């Protein structure tokens, strides 16, 4: 293989990996922001209670949903008033309010935290014949407990480190690309370049396009998660899921993941972080490796 051909192929590979990395970054950023928003939501709803009623969907809809609109097979409902909930659950003194209704599941969020009151309320719910299951959405507690196991702490620490390195590498990469683009642009301008096609080399135009695509991908993923997660995670939440998009994704891809396995969650999150870190890491490594390869061939 001639030097020129090697250079061309390695150059193409470098660009392909770089562009893949940038787009992956956009997707990952979307996931990250979405995860953060759901995590914040989870903090607010940390002691939510999921109640699965022993009713079919139509009956539940008629019972619980005051106004609902059909969106495919899902129904979204307005919040029920406190009076509705009290009447519905026959919990006169409860501090529980309904956050979201998705028949036959009702997600309940205590307005004020009182462990005894909640325990009593949950106990009362479990005794009702029309309630099939009561699930604590103990996401926050599960995560807190996970932090207290050294394995999870290590995994999460490594995940944070990888994420940090990844962002640093990506920042360096973008700075490098911006500098190269600015230099090439200034030089081409001085040499008689006028329009964008003569000012920006093809690959730099592709770069800019990829950055824009990454931004769009981030927005798209974030919007998609916002749209998908409340419905899916609430539904899955009835069967033990905590609404974490990463775990939701894992469920969609590989089947059910037990909700009580904190180690599994940590490993899954770590693996996802590593996978996301791979493309930019390759990019950062590929540049000097390419130069080394070319020099060794010389």
């Amino acid at each position, binding site marked *: 293989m001639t030097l020129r051909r090697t250079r061309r192929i390695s150059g193409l590979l470098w660009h392909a990996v770089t562009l893949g990395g940038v787009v992956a970054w956009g997707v990952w950023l979307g996931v990250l922001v979405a995860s953060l928003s759901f995590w914040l939501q989870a903090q607010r709803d940390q002691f939510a209670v999921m109640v699965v009623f022993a009713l079919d969907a139509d009956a539940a809809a008629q019972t619980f949903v005051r106004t609902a609109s059909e969106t495919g097979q899902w129904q979204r409902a307005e919040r029920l008033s406190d009076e509705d909930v009290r009447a519905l659950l026959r919990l006169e003194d409860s501090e529980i309010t309904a956050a979201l209704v998705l028949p036959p599941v009702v997600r309940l969020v205590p307005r004020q935290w009182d462990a005894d009151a909640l325990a009593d309320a949950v106990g009362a719910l479990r005794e009702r014949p029309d309630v099939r299951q009561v699930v604590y959405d103990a996401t926050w507690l599960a995560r807190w407990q996970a932090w207290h196991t050294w394995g999870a702490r290590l995994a999460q620490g490594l995940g944070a480190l990888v994420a940090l390195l990844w962002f640093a590498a990506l920042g360096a990469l973008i700075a490098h690309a911006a500098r190269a683009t600015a230099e090439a642009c200034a*030089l081409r301008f*001085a040499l*008689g370049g006028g329009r964008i096609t*003569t000012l920006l080399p093809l690959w730099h135009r592709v770069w800019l396009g990829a950055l824009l695509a990454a931004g769009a991908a981030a927005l798209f993923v974030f919007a998609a998660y916002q749209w998908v997660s409340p419905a899916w995670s609430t539904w899955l939440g009835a069967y033990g899921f905590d609404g974490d998009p990463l775990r939701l994704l894992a469920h969609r891809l590989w089947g059910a993941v037990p909700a009580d396995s904190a180690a599994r969650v940590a490993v899954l999150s770590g693996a996802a972080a590593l996978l996301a870190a791979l493309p930019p890491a390759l990019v950062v490594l590929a540049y000097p490796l390419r130069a080394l390869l070319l020099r060794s061939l010389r």
Partner: protein
Amino acid sequence: MIRVQDLTYAPQPGLAILAGVTLTIARGEWVWLRGARHAGKSVLLRIIAALLRPTQGEVWWDDVSLQRLPARALPYWRRRVGMLFAEWPLIADQPVIESVALPLIVQGTPRRRAHARVRQWFDELGLAEQAELFPHELSGSERQLALWVRAVLHAPILLLLDEPTAGACTETAMRLWRLIAAAHAAGATVLVATGGDVPFLHEQPVRRVTLVRGRVVEDVHP
């Protein structure tokens, strides 16, 4: 013909790098701009290349004022000019051939043909093996020769050269001066700026213009 009319360049109030320079340069003339640092030589070259706008005054190319040309027409002016300025070295991340071929590529010449032209030049100058290297792998002399090729690749009618032998060894510097003399003999108008003396230029049909603090203090025709 280039006419520089009462040119002043003051990037800040009270800091005049050029102060009322007037010059007329005939087609095919070779002008040697001399002067110490901050004399204004480099700025004058950049204003003639339409890369800087003067604070006052105008530069005329025949009957056209560069300052009155619409912005979209300026790139076409620059395409007639060959430049060798220190602030535009070879691009660090690309093989030398890519940077050197740029003047033809921005004009729309297909890449393959532009590269072929560069290789032709490099063959003549003994740089054939350096074409695929990166700039940091070249010696100072080789880099300067490559920059020279970039300046003349598109057969410009005006050459603006700022310290064209900077970083080159004595032998290569002499070679570059001979190349410049050959370009001039072939009909190009040449403006070359240097800080120090160049004995070779005393033997050439060169007009010497000396600048001191942005003013022309000496203008000696051959």
